[in-house]
């Protein structure tokens, strides 16, 4: 809708950009952005405006403000991965996905906050501080929350965004941009999407280029898309997907961008409900919602069946071995010599390396590097790494079997519960939290399958709950069609944030689903 508005001149790209920038400023307490690229954004908006004036917009995304997670390289704009190691690092090139967005005329507002090097499930462990979930400040949440004591500052009761793409999710959720890029390795796009009430899409591995995405786990990472509605996700996907010669892990097949049907029909589909996803710790609210969702499909004529993915319970452990091993490898390049932080220590090269890496990385990163190196030692390789690879294959086969038996899409919860307050979240360490929170999202990364979080309803405390759909490899169209149908059914409410109302915009008002397409 915004795009149409831009086309028809109801609003100008510059105006749009300015409003978003202003909103970013007034929602600074969310800490969603690490870097705001005000000047370049305004310039891009101006250029976009020129194009619209000439009647030659580059496409649907022309003039649309977007944000990008700070682990994507952006030329000329600082890229930090929320780490001391890369503070002040200005990349000389754009990640392929960033370049594609810019080529479409999108306006890059800034880089969003994350857990350091994308390791975490809360967006709480970056050097720039934690990201606050916009819903913490929503009317819906405030109405439902009961202060424990009258002196308790509502400030301290804010809830986390989930992670690790929390900044991007918060940015989209608080209307400061229309779409954002995240990354998804174990659920890092879908998890915060669920907690922040936005759509989070994890595409099939190999569909979108990883070139320029600072790698966490090369064999599982994918760029993630966060938007306010499923149609928007489809549009962004259309502009990003496709083979990249600079990324040998992207598939060669031609990708055809698609549009979703206005009235999706799910009656001919088979929805699978994997029983293992009724994980311990799953809140009763979410369980109930899940069940209601299944009923929705049944009533629409779809076939809904229970299925089994027996190796699900091994996925977290398997993930830990493979993830830490790749992390150890990928982090080896941060030695302070070529770029990034360099320690003052210069007694010897080795001591400089050690000091640099100790200073540059936080505990979480260092912990994973050490674990990963342990698993890669010659004496351990067979028992850990190779075994984990085999288990991974089993997990992937589970899905192949299920999809092969006639199931089109799987329906599962995305998270175990709604967003928890920050103070509670930090009571457990990063590793424990990740192990708990990744459990529902992680397997899709193992198997490389596409998955999407669709905001479903608000919890009793007024916080978003989302449900997840997992689709067949490269069947994003079918996946998104189902997701769109579901979205239309549940009519998830719009966040009621004061700040957004203040920067009220015709366009924002018109939208029930706040989309831009």
């Amino acid at each position, binding site marked *: 809708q915004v795009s149409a508005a831009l086309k028809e001149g109801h609003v100008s790209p510059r105006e749009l950009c300015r409003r978003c920038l202003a909103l970013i400023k007034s929602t600074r307490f969310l800490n969603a952005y690490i870097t705001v690229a005000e000047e370049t954004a305004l310039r891009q908006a101006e250029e976009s405006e020129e194009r619209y004036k000439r009647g030659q917009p580059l496409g649907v995304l022309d003039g649309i403000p977007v944000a990008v997670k700070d682990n994507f390289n952006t030329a000329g704009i600082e890229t930090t991965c929320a780490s001391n190691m890369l503070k002040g690092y200005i990349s000389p090139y754009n990640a392929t996905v960033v370049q594609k967005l810019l080529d479409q005329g999108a306006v890059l507002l800034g880089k969003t906050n994350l857990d350091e090097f994308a390791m975490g499930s809360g967006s709480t462990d970056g050097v720039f501080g934690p990201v606050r979930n916009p819903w913490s400040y929503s009317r819906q949440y405030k109405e439902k929350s009961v202060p424990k004591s009258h002196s308790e500052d509502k400030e301290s009761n804010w809830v986390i965004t989930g992670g690790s793409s929390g900044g991007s999710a918060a940015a989209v959720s608080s209307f400061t941009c229309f779409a954002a890029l995240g990354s998804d390795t174990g659920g890092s796009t879908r998890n915060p999407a669920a907690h922040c009430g936005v759509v989070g899409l994890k595409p099939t591995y190999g569909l979108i280029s990883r070139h320029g995405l600072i790698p966490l786990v090369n064999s599982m990472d994918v760029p993630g898309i966060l938007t306010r509605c499923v149609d928007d996700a489809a549009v962004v996907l259309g502009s990003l997907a496709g083979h990249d010669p600079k990324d*040998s*892990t992207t598939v060669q097949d031609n990708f055809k961008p698609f549009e979703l049907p206005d009235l999706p029909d799910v009656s001919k589909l088979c929805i699978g409900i994997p029983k293992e996803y009724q994980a311990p710790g799953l809140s009763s609210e979410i369980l109930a919602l899940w069940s209601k969702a299944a009923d929705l499909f049944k009533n629409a004529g779809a076939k809904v069946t229970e299925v089994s993915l027996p190796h699900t319970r091994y996925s977290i452990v398997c993930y830990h071995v493979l993830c830490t091993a790749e992390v150890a*490898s990928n982090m080896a390049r941060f*030695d302070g010599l070529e770029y990034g932080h360099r320690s003052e220590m210069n007694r010897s090269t080795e001591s400089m390396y050690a000091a640099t890496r100790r200073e540059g990385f936080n505990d979480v990163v260092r912990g994973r590097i050490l674990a990963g190196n342990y698993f890669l030692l010659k004496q351990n*390789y067979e028992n850990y790494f190779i075994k984990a690879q085999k288990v991974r294959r089993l997990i992937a086969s589970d899905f192949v079997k299920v999809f092969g038996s006639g199931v089109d899409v799987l329906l599962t919860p995305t998270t175990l519960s709604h967003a928890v307050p920050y103070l509670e979240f930090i009571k457990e360490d990063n590793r424990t939290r990740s192990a708990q929170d990744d459990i529902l999202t992680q397997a899709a990364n193992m198997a490389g399958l596409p998955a999407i979080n669709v905001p479903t309803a608000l919890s009793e405390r007024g916080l978003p709950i989302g449900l997840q759909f997992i689709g067949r490899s490269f069947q994003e169209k079918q996946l998104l069609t189902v997701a769109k149908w579901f979205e239309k059914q549940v009519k998830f409410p719009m966040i009621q944030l004061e700040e957004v109302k203040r920067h009220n915009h015709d366009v924002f008002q018109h939208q029930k689903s706040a989309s831009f397409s």
Partner: protein
Amino acid sequence: VLNRRCVEAAVMTGLALNCSINKKSLFDRKHYFYADLPAGYQITQQRVPIAVNGSLSYSLCKDNKMSQMVTKTVRIKQIQLEQDSGKSLHDDTRNQTLVDLNRAGVGLMEVVMEPDMCCGEEAAAAVRELQLILQTLGSSQAVMAEGQLRVDANVSVHHPGEPYGVRTEVKNINSIRFLAKAVDYEIQRQIEELENGGTILNETRAFDSKLGCTVPMRDKEGKQDYRFMPEPNLPPLILYDAKSLPANMNHQQVVNIDWINERLPDLPSVKRAKLVERYGILPEHSFALLNEDGLTEFFENVVKQTRMKPKKVIGWILNVLLSYLKQHSLTVKESPVSSVLMADLLNLLEKKEISSTAAKQVLAELWKGEGKTPLEIVKEKKLELIQDQEELEQICQAVIDGQENE
């Protein structure tokens, strides 16, 4: 992203060395920290390299006589593709190390030979032949001094009948000549060490060309665990041949082994055989021709333009021209005497217009590169052979008379 040219070069080299080309090969990361390794790991092919089990034939002169050439073979264990690291330049005076990263990441082809050679001479001959092959294929210009071909020698000694001894690795060898020296020195050193009751350490040593010996290298690591891991960003490398190539595959996207095989140029051994057959020269002549860049072309050009038999031409090329070039440290390309001039000269000789002594004089003049033709020089210096019988008699008589007068 994998460099296609590197893959093709590796396949070509593998085929030239009689290797089996692995239709599927894999890439791995080898991790260690060093200033010249910016990623903290090197991409290599540890599990399944691109080519295995080949052989390289080379020739040696028995007892230093060119006329008795012996053919030897060394087995090729494997050829693998890997990344180069940067270059470290140690500045000991300022106690610092400078790192040049320009070549980091560039593709390398590592050819691993089995320990089938027994002395410096054999090692040198084998590497020389490899060098020629690489140059012929175009895989590499293989100039050692430029670092285009780097050789590390692994040397061990053992008593006949006993298993191979502990080996040392010798690095920093910058020419074929030094290779022979380094190997021979190391063999000697190890023998002496063992005969004195010592042991050989499995270490890395550097060849010091000035002193002609090997010294232990600065300790890079203790026992290193490289923590090998499959390279996640490079899918397995699949090569095809005519049989396995899918019908609708884009030719640009794949590397076809048979296609490459059909286009392999003549290898040095083949070239030599052809030269011997076509021109009737001796095998050792063919070696000498191929050993000098451009000499074969020169020779063939001269042969084309003269009626002198190749068997005679070869003498002039190898003994006279080549020694001139060597004396003045010139390459064939830099020769002031072109093949045309050479041919002219040899024609005069063939037609018996000058003697061979005279021809050598003319050549000395030609060497100055003043642009005169052989004919001009002959006329200038009055070097023509006198054919007239009478004239000759007169000269002889004059000489005899002259003698009598003394």
